[in-house]
């Protein structure tokens, strides 16, 4: 009886702390990555001087990336290792602590960039570098190309 109560309590705790699972986690994480690409492209427009600098728009782009970063790590249940043209590397599930740390770093860097609200292009440049360094460093270990 006591055992049942314990189990029940444990289950409830897990249910309360587990993040809501997307119906299609592979599609959800791919959509976040696609948005990251779009946001990066827009930021590069400012970097290259192709778009006149707009502090509010830049802050919004960093905020968008931060929102994606916060949700990203919740879309890797063990049932989503394959299928849906996923390019997720097996290392995500083999080295969960390292993957978690990489996602946490992306959250922190995008969060800092969004909070900084860079007023000028010169202020934005180092933040852009800090944020986009995450792309390579994470893809080096945790993404494998399928085509």
């Amino acid at each position: 009886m006591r055992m049942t109560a314990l189990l029940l309590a444990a289950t409830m705790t897990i249910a309360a702390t587990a993040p809501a699972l997307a119906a299609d986690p592979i599609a959800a994480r791919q959509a976040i990555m696609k948005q990251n690409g779009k946001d990066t492209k827009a930021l590069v427009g400012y970097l290259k001087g192709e778009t006149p600098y707009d502090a509010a728009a830049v802050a919004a782009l960093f905020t968008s990336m931060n929102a994606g970063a916060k949700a990203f790590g919740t879309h890797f249940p063990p049932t989503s290792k394959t299928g849906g043209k996923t390019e997720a590397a097996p290392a995500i599930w083999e080295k969960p602590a390292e993957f978690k740390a990489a996602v946490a770093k992306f959250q922190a860097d995008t969060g800092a960039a969004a909070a900084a609200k860079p007023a000028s292009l010169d202020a934005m440049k180092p933040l852009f570098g800090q944020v986009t360094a995450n792309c390579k460093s994470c893809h080096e270990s945790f993404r494998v190309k399928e085509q």
Partner: protein
Amino acid sequence: MRRLLISLVALTLFATWLFGLLTMPRRLPAAEIAAETSGDAARGARIFWAGGCASCHAAVGAKGDDRLRLGGRPLATPFGTFQSPNISADPVDGIGGWRLEDFANAMQRGVDRTGNHLYPAFPYSSYVNMTQGDVADLFAFIKTLPRVAGRPPETRLAFPYNIRRGIGLWKLLYLDSGPIAALPAGNAPAQRGRYLVEGPGHCGQCHTPRTLGGLGGLDTARWLGGAANPEGKGRIPNITPARSGIGAWSAGEIETYLETGFTPDYDSVGGSMVEVQQNLAKLPKEDRAAIAAYLKAIPAVEN
């Protein structure tokens, strides 16, 4: 019965002799090696980054100046785990005590200083296309790098890959110099790119499929057409101007990718290519432009 026995012994001796002859390590003729001290270390830095030496000989995950510490690292493949040796300037554990002749034979014939075959995981079948001068410059540069003490463990592969002498047969079949991709005449930047890609850059070693289910040489009919990932899951992309390759990328976009790691869609470089891209970012701009010109000019391979 006696005659049969004699015939058998004779046949075995003959086969052994033939195997020995065919698999004998063959060294470079002296005329194909630059003069001993002719190398220039400053010029060699460019060849070092073009050749990606650090990507296999510096420690896994090394950053910054640690990428110049060439103590060797393991490389896991379906054949077993290769150990890249210490090629630092250490005179005992590295190649500090080597002469240019030793280095050139390793680079362009896959023969080590003691006369043994090196595994073709070391891409000498690409380095064979390098100029004598570049080999000498690279050697001079490596001699200026930090001395790293210690030797990685010996490479131990399963039978039959552990018979080093057998590599001689592989070399007979697949170690060959000369231009690979057909290029349109008069495209000078593409010709310069050819040297970097087919020689020091050794791009084809991963981006071209191999014959005999991975055991053989590069399938040059599908040159740079994409291949299985030698390190596990996934594929190494097709980088020819095909629809299934990077035909949609402009030369400028290829250059940007090699410099920054961003694709035209602002996806990023990943996997082992991260280190390669970081190496190529250290080259002069015109080298990346030449590689891009070459990749736009080679025949498209559709998958």
